[in-house]
């Protein structure tokens, strides 16, 4: 990764807000409530809060690690691993991380296609749709990180009416559903907090495009702000969902947000759920393209000969193939369930571990100089 990043392809500090935001608030927005409220019922929002606050801590370790790394070379996860763990183990870890990213992308893409298949077009072919979609992804990724940032920003803007739709719930909300607070054992709350990891995954992608950010000092503030905003959005949704559904109904509903959209009613629009579902599709573009972009970067760092503009074809074909291999809802659920521990290990264990190694290495080499 010797090539220096040209100033023209760098992006502003607000990207630290918008890109993780676009990654975090995604398809899970529609479906995560059921998983989170499974054991702690009305205290599910506490789990979300705990996990959201934990992301702040991880962000802090991430940012300090990247800031330290700047002295030694390129401050992204791939070169960082190579430096800290040695060339060989580093590259192996890079491949592991690549697999994780691929897994993450496929989970999201397939999850959304499932929603489309259920809500809009039952006969929509997974292969066909992912092919269409990956073409758009290809077009975006070929434009570089700047374009990807653009899609992130726009997806945030387009999602605003979707978030505002939550306001219509308030007349129908049963706020007594939230009571009694903290009834469940910390164990139940923490275990569902672990399940909520799925929802907050995505901010770790900051580690891949960090070297592309101008004025990283400002970016830090944006990064924390982005996490807080994602936390706020998820908290709002979970609270709204708990107040709108009775616990029994919530457990019987796979996509509570969609079901909720079905029951709001505007004079001019009916079936607002289809419209919102399609608006949410916008969110898939940034998350998939950030992932594919990160994968091309990773491949380039492992094998500098493969140019990003060629590896993108391979990656997209892989994504299309694996996505269309996952066939039914049960498999999708399985994949989603698997993402939780994997994501948990990567974000909450591996990143602090790396940070620790960096600190150790600095300590050891500090003695030498």
């Amino acid at each position, binding site marked *: 990764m010797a090539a220096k990043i040209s100033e023209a392809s760098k992006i502003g500090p607000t990207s630290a807000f918008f890109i993780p935001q676009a990654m975090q608030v995604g398809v899970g927005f529609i479906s995560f409530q059921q998983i989170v409220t499974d054991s702690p019922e009305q205290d599910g929002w506490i789990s979300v809060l705990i996990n959201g606050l934990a992301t702040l801590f991880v962000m802090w370790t991430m940012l300090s690690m990247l800031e330290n790394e700047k002295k030694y070379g390129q401050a992204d996860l791939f070169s960082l691993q190579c430096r800290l763990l040695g060339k060989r183990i580093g590259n192996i870890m890079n491949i592991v991380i690549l697999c994780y990213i691929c897994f993450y992308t496929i989970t999201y893409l397939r999850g959304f296609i499932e929603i489309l298949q259920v809500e809009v077009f039952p006969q929509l072919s997974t292969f066909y749709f992912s*092919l269409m979609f990956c073409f758009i992804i290809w077009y975006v990724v070929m434009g570089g990180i700047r374009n990807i940032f653009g899609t992130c920003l726009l997806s945030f803007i387009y999602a605003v009416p979707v978030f505002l739709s939550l306001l219509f719930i308030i007349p129908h909300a049963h706020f007594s559903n939230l009571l009694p607070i903290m009834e469940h054992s910390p164990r139940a709350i923490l275990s569902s907090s672990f399940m909520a990891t799925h929802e907050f995954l995505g901010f770790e992608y900051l580690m891949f495009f960090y070297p592309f950010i101008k004025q990283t000092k400002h970016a830090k503030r944006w990064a924390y702000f982005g996490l807080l905003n994602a936390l706020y959005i998820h908290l709002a949704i979970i609270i709204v969902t708990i107040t709108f559904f*009775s616990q029994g109904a919530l457990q019987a509903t796979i996509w509570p947000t969609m079901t909720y959209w079905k029951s709001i009613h505007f004079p001019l629009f009916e079936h607002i759920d289809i419209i919102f579902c399609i608006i949410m599709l916008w969110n898939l573009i940034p998350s998939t393209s950030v992932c594919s972009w990160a994968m091309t970067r990773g491949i380039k760092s492992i094998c500098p000969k493969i140019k990003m503009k060629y590896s993108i074809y391979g990656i997209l074909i892989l994504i299309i193939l694996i996505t269309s291999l996952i066939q039914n809802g049960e498999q999708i659920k399985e994949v989603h369930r698997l993402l939780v521990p994997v994501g948990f290990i990567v974000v909450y264990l591996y990143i602090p571990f790396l940070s620790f190694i960096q600190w150790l290495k600095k300590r050891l080499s500090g003695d030498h100089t």
Partner: protein
Amino acid sequence: MRKKHNSTQILIPIFCSLFFLSGCVPTYIFDDIMIIEGIGYDYIGNGKIIGTITTPNFVQGTGSGGSQSTGVPANGPMVRTLSAKTYDGKSLIDKFQAEGQMGLQGGKTRLMIYNKAMAKHGLLRQLSFRNRDPDLPRDMNLAVVEGNCREILTSNDYQAQMSVTQYIQNLIQDNSRQNYPETDLAKFLYAYYGAYMDPFMPLIRKQGDHLELRGLAIFKKDRYVMSIPNKKVFLFKMLFQKFNQGVYDMQYAHGKHIALRNVHTAISYYVRNGNSATPDIYAKVKVIGQVRQATPKAISKRTSQSVAKLFEKSLTYNAKALVHQFQKKGVDPLQLGDQVRSFTYHFDGASWPDRYPNAHFHCQVSVNIQQTGISN
């Protein structure tokens, strides 16, 4: 300077041709399908049901180019109906498909009605089916019918110039802005799936050439148990939710009535000893109202205070009686159990059905009469 667009030039045509060639999703062209508006279920015993569906029939008599006469249909949509025997009504749409000239689609169903026998038989299967179907709107109305659904949906001697489905839906929706609590599929399922609560629906009857609301049909889980009459619906709504524009008619002496239209009603619950054998449920109701009708000389500005007291007494007494009635039947449409749960840490849900009939219901109503009309 300018970028090369070689790959774009190759891929975009490929993309376009793929897009247009391989996109095969079935179409539902609006005027080539039959859109189901209302569904009725009549139970005829032995697990068999007569299902009736209505679809609007917009055909105009003016021949080609409806524009020649008027843009607006002169006579509203007519109705086509189909009915057939089926099992538990689950595959109603598929059952009818053989009879429909065009594809039947349920995405705009507005109404589902059940006759009393059906409601007593239990709606379990239909409900889990409805909850699963992504196509159904959640704001559709449900109702229990006294009599025969098929008769209601197929007869065409109504005074209203609209399809019967729309007529019923308007009836329910307009009333739920006044005395009746809001009911739709989402709210029904909320109570149906929720613990410690029971759902309810409005009760409809065909009376001559019009339809009327008879009160509320109260369910225990999916089975119809009892009904509350029209005049008690105000009390029900008062204890159930915040509302306005309801009318409560009080007979304070023989043959003497005062009707109160509430401008605002708020209810707040408080629960003590939630896990004891006899929990105490306190309901605090605040009514702000205007007197709309009164027997002559029944009320004046001076006496409004005392009339308010009368109202308070009447409302409190009747509300308690209503709740007592529910307790006796072991149904909880007011979601009192959920209130108890929300006030109690580690609520003992398993024993709740046994404790519910013994719970003490305390009700305190305060009435504030804002104005008494423009004459004394």
